[in-house]
């Protein structure tokens, strides 16, 4: 469960104050698949940073399960990010010189307890995103879609409370994008809490619920009546490619 209560964020550039978030409140239950939408400049990224405990709000409360992150210091936030939040970024952010497996195991380095079977866990996570045969590959040897799947495996390895994806399909072609969304839908069916931040309504409609930001405030918060089926889309796109 995560709960935002009157979250505000104000940036100070010189003497000019910019209020980016102007009191945002919502609640996401465990197991939900939520898309946060908004055009650029609506405070989407700032909200994403707050949700990911990468940045603190200027005012308000943000409760992640039982902890209010607003009261935590930098070390505690790092700790929270490590075991409660799994990040997926638009630019993947993989370590170029490390293999897929090494990349997936990265968060474990910063865990309280380094699991003895870290390698097995990494292999399992890679298998879960369909990359069992690519463990020893470097990011440069993988396609964009495969790189993003490595990033998803990395996000899952610490078994976080929420999976936070920022424009996860932004750098991918439609088919790879659909495949990535299909993975999210599958993880959601397995009971994961997933938050996808996107500007693209077609992407957002894979979720169960869409929160629309406008001007630093929640403009809309509605369930999706019939979420799109990413798997079917991916198959259709693959068939279309094959036909060409």
């Amino acid at each position, binding site marked *: 469960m995560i709960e935002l209560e009157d979250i505000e964020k104000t940036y100070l550039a010189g003497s000019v104050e910019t209020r980016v978030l102007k009191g945002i409140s919502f609640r996401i239950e465990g197991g939900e698949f939520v898309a946060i939408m908004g055009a650029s400049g609506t405070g989407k990224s700032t909200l994403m940073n707050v949700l990911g405990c*990468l940045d603190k709000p200027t005012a308000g409360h943000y409760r992640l399960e039982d902890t209010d992150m607003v009261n935590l210091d*930098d070390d505690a936030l*790092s700790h929270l*990010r490590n075991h409660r939040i799994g990040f997926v970024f638009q630019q993947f*952010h993989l370590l170029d010189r490390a293999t897929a497996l090494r990349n997936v195991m990265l968060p474990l380095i*910063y865990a309280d307890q380094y699991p003895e079977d870290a390698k097995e866990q990494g292999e399992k996570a890679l298998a879960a995103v369909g990359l069992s045969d690519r463990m020893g590959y470097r990011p440069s040897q993988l396609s964009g879609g495969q790189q993003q799947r490595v990033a998803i495996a990395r996000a899952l390895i610490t078994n976080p409370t929420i999976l936070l994806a920022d424009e996860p399909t932004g750098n991918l072609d439609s088919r790879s994008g659909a495949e990535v969304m299909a993975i999210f839908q599958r993880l959601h069916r397995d009971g994961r809490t997933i938050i996808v931040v996107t500007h693209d309504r077609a992407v957002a409609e894979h979720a169960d619920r869409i929160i629309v930001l406008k001007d630093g405030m929640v403009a809309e918060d509605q369930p999706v009546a019939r979420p799109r089926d990413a798997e079917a889309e991916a198959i259709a796109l693959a068939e279309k490619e094959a036909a060409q």
Partner: protein
Amino acid sequence: MRIMRIAKEGARALAAHRLRTFLMMAGTIIGIAALTVIMAVGKGTEKKVMKRVNAFGTHVIMITAGGGKGFSPPQEGVTTLRPDDAEAIRAQVPGMELLNVFAMKRGLPVKAGASQTQAVVTATDQNWHEAWDWPVADGEPITDEDQATMARVCVLGTTTAKELFGDQNPIGEYVQVGNVRFRVKGVLQTRGVSPHGGDFDSRVMIPLSTGLRRLFNQDHITNIRLKVGDSSRLTQLGEEVRQLLRRRHTITPPKEDDFSVFTAAEVAKEARGISRTLTYLLSALAGLSLLVGGIVLMNILLISVGERIKEIGLRRAMGATRRDVFMQFVTESLAVTISGMVLGSVLGWAVSITLARVTQFPVVISWEPFALSLAFAMVVGVFFGVQPARRAARLKPVEALR
């Protein structure tokens, strides 16, 4: 251990950027190599000094005819040093245990039958064997009776004996020096090579009286060797001897001494010679390399922090604390300097061994430079790694990921 996992991350980053890592190491390698050579040469020199001092004698004062600096052979044509100088020292400077008076000439032709060679011919009193701690291996030594009777006898060094007589026993045979024939009465023990590279065993010893009257036809000597009882008073006694001889030879400033007095202290100073200069030079090189190397290391690390902002942001997002990031960069810096130290030590050893082979410079390989180098490497690694590491740790994850 978390710190070990983080150190491993640092090591992986270094292994992935070999050229950069090598450039970071270069200064440490050179500095530590220089340090290793300094210590090897320094230890070697001390060993050489001790050997020289022991060979010279720790209780010995040596007086040589002719002035000038350095422990050198007596000067030809200086006739002022005489046997009665030795008598005066014995009478007037207390604390002398043994006096040995001798006159030597180098490179004199020595014949025996058809064989001929060159040798140092030393005309000496009977104290020589004891003063130099150099007894005969075979036959008889020079005695006071030989002195009294001006006997035409001699004792040979092993090299000379071999050159003249081969494997034949020389005792009872005759050798000719100039136009005097000497009966061989003994052969000295083998001494080997002198610190200056000469052959100690190429020599003919004859009685002092015989030498001065019958062979050299002179009444001056070339050396007096004194053995003192208390070696701690060596320098002081040496000075007393010098003053006495100055009075006897009526030397007043600005006239230079026409003799030189040498003790173990001077021998040590001379043996250290240029190795001291070399040590200063290499120390400067080592210090400078470590300093410049450290600055280069810091610069490259700072650049690498700039290049790796995204990586740092990612690590922060994955849960790395500021401390984790800081430690990663410090361990990277330390790994660079410690690896550089290992390479530098190996290089230093190689240079030391080559130096020993090629120049016969005295070199001693020991573990101390390794320990000292490790300490230096760690100081440099931490000192120059902290600033970049702090900068990396201070990055805000949000800004780093942007």
